């Protein structure tokens, strides 16, 4: 169990933001931090890792205090049991893949575990290559494996997949999900990707302007008006053509344009340029695979 209650003044592009993060992370859960850029998601990760120091508050992990401004406790990042996967991978360029992992190991048992992780992440054939010779997806896997060598209490990932192409992204999502299931390590992920969030996480923390606005399972967050047996889409109203007694409405849903007919009364409540919710009774809808 991780209890976080910290205050930190951030200077962002929109001026000074006084962030106050308050949340509890459950054991072995996969929590995604979701929200607009500049809301403080990365800062929260860095505060937990000890790479940045909160102005006040406390961080407690499994009963151990990592930070407490009142008691003047502040464990340095070296003493916090954390595996950090950086957005730019941060691999050591002069070390081979295997050396990168071995550098993290503290004893023989962890050195042996490093080799297990190399196999688990399918890096065996690349283990003697330097990071500069690897593709983005391969680098990401090395960074992930390296972060796991020391058996950290928390695995922290800062938008690890944002720079990858969709296929590689999907493969690594599967891998990450597998590793989380296998090792049962409490995982924190910063992500902008809805599919990724729904696929990987147990819960989603919605971060807005330095606050945890809500925390719930990802499906509850993305489908808040959930009603069973209805298909719901959110679209932008592009055009309204009224021909009494009906209105033809054109909406942009995702990247496709939808044209449909509604009653004139319903049409009057809509406004061009505003968002609208489309709900269809979808008992047994036709859903076909593509390609």
């Amino acid at each position, binding site marked *: 169990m991780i209890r976080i209650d910290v205050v930190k003044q951030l200077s962002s592009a929109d001026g000074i933001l006084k962030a106050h993060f308050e949340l509890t992370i459950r054991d072995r859960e996969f929590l995604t931090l979701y929200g607009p850029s500049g809301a403080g998601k990365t800062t929260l990760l860095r505060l937990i*890792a000890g*790479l940045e120091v909160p102005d006040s508050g406390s961080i407690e992990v499994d009963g151990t205090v990592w930070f407490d401004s009142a008691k003047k406790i502040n464990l*340095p*990042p*070296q*003493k*916090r049991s*954390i*595996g*950090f996967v*950086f*957005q*730019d991978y*941060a*691999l*050591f*360029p*002069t070390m081979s893949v295997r050396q990168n992992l071995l*550098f*993290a190991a*503290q004893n023989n048992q962890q050195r042996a575990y490093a080799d297990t992780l190399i196999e688990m992440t399918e890096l065996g054939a690349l283990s003697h290559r*330097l990071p*500069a*010779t690897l593709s983005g997806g391969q680098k990401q896997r090395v960074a992930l494996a*390296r*972060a796991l*060598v*020391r058996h950290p209490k928390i695995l922290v990932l800062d938008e690890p997949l944002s720079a990858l192409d969709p296929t590689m992204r999907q493969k690594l999502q599967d891998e990450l999900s597998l590793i989380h299931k296998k090792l049962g390590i409490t995982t924190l992920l910063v992500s902008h990707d809805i599919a990724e969030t729904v696929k990987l996480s147990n819960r989603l923390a919605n971060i807005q302007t330095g606050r945890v606005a809500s925390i719930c399972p990802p499906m509850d967050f993305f489908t808040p008006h959930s009603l069973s047996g209805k298909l719901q889409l959110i679209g932008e109203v592009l055009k309204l053509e009224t021909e009494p007694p009906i209105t033809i409405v054109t909406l942009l849903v995702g990247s496709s344009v939808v044209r449909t007919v509604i009653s004139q009364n319903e049409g009057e409540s809509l406004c061009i340029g505003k968002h609208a919710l489309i709900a269809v009774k979808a008992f047994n809808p036709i859903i076909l695979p593509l390609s």
Partner: protein
Amino acid sequence: MNSEFLFTMVLTFKLAAVTTIILLFIGIPLAVFLVFSKTRFKSIAETIVSMPLVLPPSVLGFYLLLAFSPASFIGKYLTSHGIRLAFSFEGLVIGSVLFSLPFMVHPIQSALSQVPTSIFEAAYTLGKSKMETMIRVILPVIRHGLVSGIVLAFAHTVGEFGVILMIGGNIPGETRVASIAIYDEVESLNYAMAHQYALTLFAVTFAILLLVYALNKKSLEGMR
């Protein structure tokens, strides 16, 4: 080949080697300070380090000579402890270290500033201290900067003339280095001897630089 020539050449390279080794130990922490420190004294430190680039060597030599003289405060203190720096090899080393400082610090500083912060942070989250991170991760990454610093500081010390002339004089076997010897031989119209010095300096410096750049290129290719 006469013994005086050999003596002078050995002294020249000994001075350059000692200076370079001392500079390496001063240069790395100084470069780290200049890149990562956030104090307002940083610009003052930066200015002092860079001064020898623009200052005439005779200015530095003049002030060092004054400082070393037994009449000055520092000189008096040193003399009372039996240390004589003016017109001595040790004095030359101090002068050369000060004068070649930017040639060691600048390449290391520029290499360090290009290392992404996340590399440092990754090592810290993997439990490594600042010192261990520096030695095992960062120094190998900035080795091209280190090599450039070593080569430039060494070559610059070999070629230094003004400071040495001011504080070292021209004592054979003690403070007479090749660059001074060339000047001296030309003054006494001994062109053959001047040639011998000049050509040796030219050849040795060329060889060192060529070797270093060739090695550097090879290891850079290995990184890609």
